[in-house]
C-alpha cells in the first residue's frame, strides 16, 4: 500500500504531476467536487494543529468526500495505551485514507507499515512534514515560475523545524539551487540534512547567523518559528525565541521580487506590518497547501484502487 511519509517517497515526475493537478483544481474546481464521493479521510492528530488538520479536512470536503477526525491523544485510545500500529489497523477498517500527525518521530512510518489504506504523514515530531513541503513547492513554482536556479534562504529554527528539513530534501533534487542557512548556533540544520542532502549532492550552501547580511541575495526567504514544544529546557527556548524578527525595515534590503514564506503559525518572527508587503506569500502558501493535499489524496486513492 502506497503511503507518503517523506518527500523522497515521491519522484520528481510525481511532484510535477501533483503540482499540475493542483493548478488544474485551482482553474477548474467544479471538475473535482465529486471525485471522492462516498470516501472517508481519517485525520488522526495526536498533536495540536489548526491549519494542517483543517487543510486536510477542507481538501477532502472539496473533493466531495467525508472526514472522520481524532484530535489530541487524550480523546482517543492512545490515552489508554493503544499502540500506533493498532490504531492504524483499526482506523483502516473505517476509512479509505489516513492523515496522521504525531509528536514522536517515525510514528507515521509505523502507521503506514500497519495500515491497509494509504497513510499521509501530517508531521511526525521534528522529523518531517511532507505536505507542508508540497505547499511550499507549489508556492515557489507559482510565485517564481520555476523550482531550479534559485537562492533559497531558510531562517530561524533549522534544527527542529521539520518543514525546513523536508524542503531542503525536496529542493535538493532540482538544478541550480543555492541555500543560505540563517540560524543561531544552537539551532543549525542537523548533520543528516547537511551531510546527506547538501554535501552529498554538491549543493552550494552557506551558514550564517545574520539575516540582514544576506537578505539582499535571496529569491526566497523561508522564515520559521522557534518551537517551544521541541525544547526540553524552557530557558533555552526563551533565550532563542526572538533571534530573528522580519520587519518592514529589513524587507527594504530584500529584492523587489523576493518571496517571503512561512509554514505558520507565526509568533513574532514576522511582524504584522510585513503582511501588507506584496512579497509576503505565507497566506497564499496556506491556500496552496489545501490544493496540494487535494492532489495527493486523489493520487493515493487512485493508486489504491479506491476511486
Amino acid at each position, binding site marked *: 500500500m502506497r503511503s507518503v511519509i517523506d518527500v523522497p517517497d515521491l519522484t520528481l515526475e510525481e511532484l510535477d504531476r501533483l503540482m499540475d493537478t493542483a493548478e488544474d483544481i485551482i482553474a477548474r474546481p467544479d471538475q473535482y467536487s465529486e471525485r471522492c464521493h462516498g470516501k472517508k479521510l481519517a485525520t488522526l492528530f495526536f498533536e495540536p494543529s489548526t491549519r494542517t488538520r483543517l487543510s486536510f479536512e477542507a481538501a477532502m470536503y472539496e473533493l466531495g468526500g467525508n472526514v472522520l477526525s481524532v484530535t489530541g491523544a487524550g480523546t482517543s485510545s492512545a490515552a489508554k495505551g493503544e499502540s*500506533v*500500529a493498532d490504531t492504524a489497523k483499526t482506523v483502516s477498517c473505517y476509512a479509505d485514507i489516513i492523515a496522521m500527525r504525531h509528536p514522536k*518521530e*517515525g510514528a507515521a512510518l509505523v502507521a503506514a507499515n500497519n495500515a491497509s489504506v494509504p497513510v499521509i504523514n501530517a508531521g511526525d515530531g521534528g522529523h518531517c512534514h511532507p505536505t507542508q513541503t508540497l505547499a511550499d513547492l507549489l508556492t515557489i513554482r507559482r510565485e517564481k515560475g520555476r523550482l531550479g536556479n534559485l537562492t533559497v534562504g531558510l531562517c530561524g529554527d533549522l534544527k527542529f523545524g521539520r518543514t525546513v528539513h523536508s524542503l531542503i530534501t525536496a529542493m535538493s533534487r532540482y538544478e541550480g539551487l543555492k541555500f543560505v542557512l540563517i540560524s543561531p548556533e544552537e539551532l543549525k540544520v542537523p*548533520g543528516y540534512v547537511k551531510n546527506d542532502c547538501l554535501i552529498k549532492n554538491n549543493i552550494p550552501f552557506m551558514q550564517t547567523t545574520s539575516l540582514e547580511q544576506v537578505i539582499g541575495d535571496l529569491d526566497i526567504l523561508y522564515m520559521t518559528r522557534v518551537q517551544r514544544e521541541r525544547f526540553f529546557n524552557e530557558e533555552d527556548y526563551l533565550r532563542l525565541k526572538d533571534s530573528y524578527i522580519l520587519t518592514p525595515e529589513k524587507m527594504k534590503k530584500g529584492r523587489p521580487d523576493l518571496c517571503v514564506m512561512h509554514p505558520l503559525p507565526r509568533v513574532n518572527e514576522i511582524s504584522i506590518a510585513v503582511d501588507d508587503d506584496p512579497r509576503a506569500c505565507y497566506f497564499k502558501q496556506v491556500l496552496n497547501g489545501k490544493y496540494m493535499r487535494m492532489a495527493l489524496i486523489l493520487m493515493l486513492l487512485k493508486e489504491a484502487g479506491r476511486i
Partner: protein
Amino acid sequence: MTVDSIRDGIVIDHITAGLGRKLYNLLGLENTNVPVALLTNVTSVKLGRKDIIKVDAPIPVDYDLIGYVDPGATVNIIREGKLVEKKQIDMPEMLVNVIHCKNPRCITSCEQELAHKFRLSNREKKEYRCIYCETKVALL
C-alpha cells in the same frame, strides 16, 4: 597456549584485537553453559593481533550482530571436527534489535513492542540510521 579443538560449534576468528570481549558480551555468551573460549591478543599474520571466540556447541549465530561489532571477522562452522563452512562477515544492510535508538523523540522510545531497526546509511563511515527518526549511530 593451547585450546582444545572443537567438535560441533563455531569459531569467530579475525576479530579486531580489543573487540572480542565486547562481542562475547553482546552475543550473550557469558550466560551460556556450553564450553566457550575467549582468546585475546593472539598473534595474527594478517592483523598483527586478533581476538578469537570458540564455542563448542552448535548454537545459533547472530551474523548481523557480529557484522555490526566487527565487519572484518570470519565465522567458521565446525561439524564433527571438520570445517564445513567459512563465512566472511560484512556490515548488514539492516540491524534489527541489535542496537537501540536513544533519541527520546523517536517512536521507539514509547512503543516498547516496536523493533529497533537501523539501516546502513554510509558504508565508508560505517554509519547506521534509525529507520524511524534517522538518528545516526556509528559502528563500535
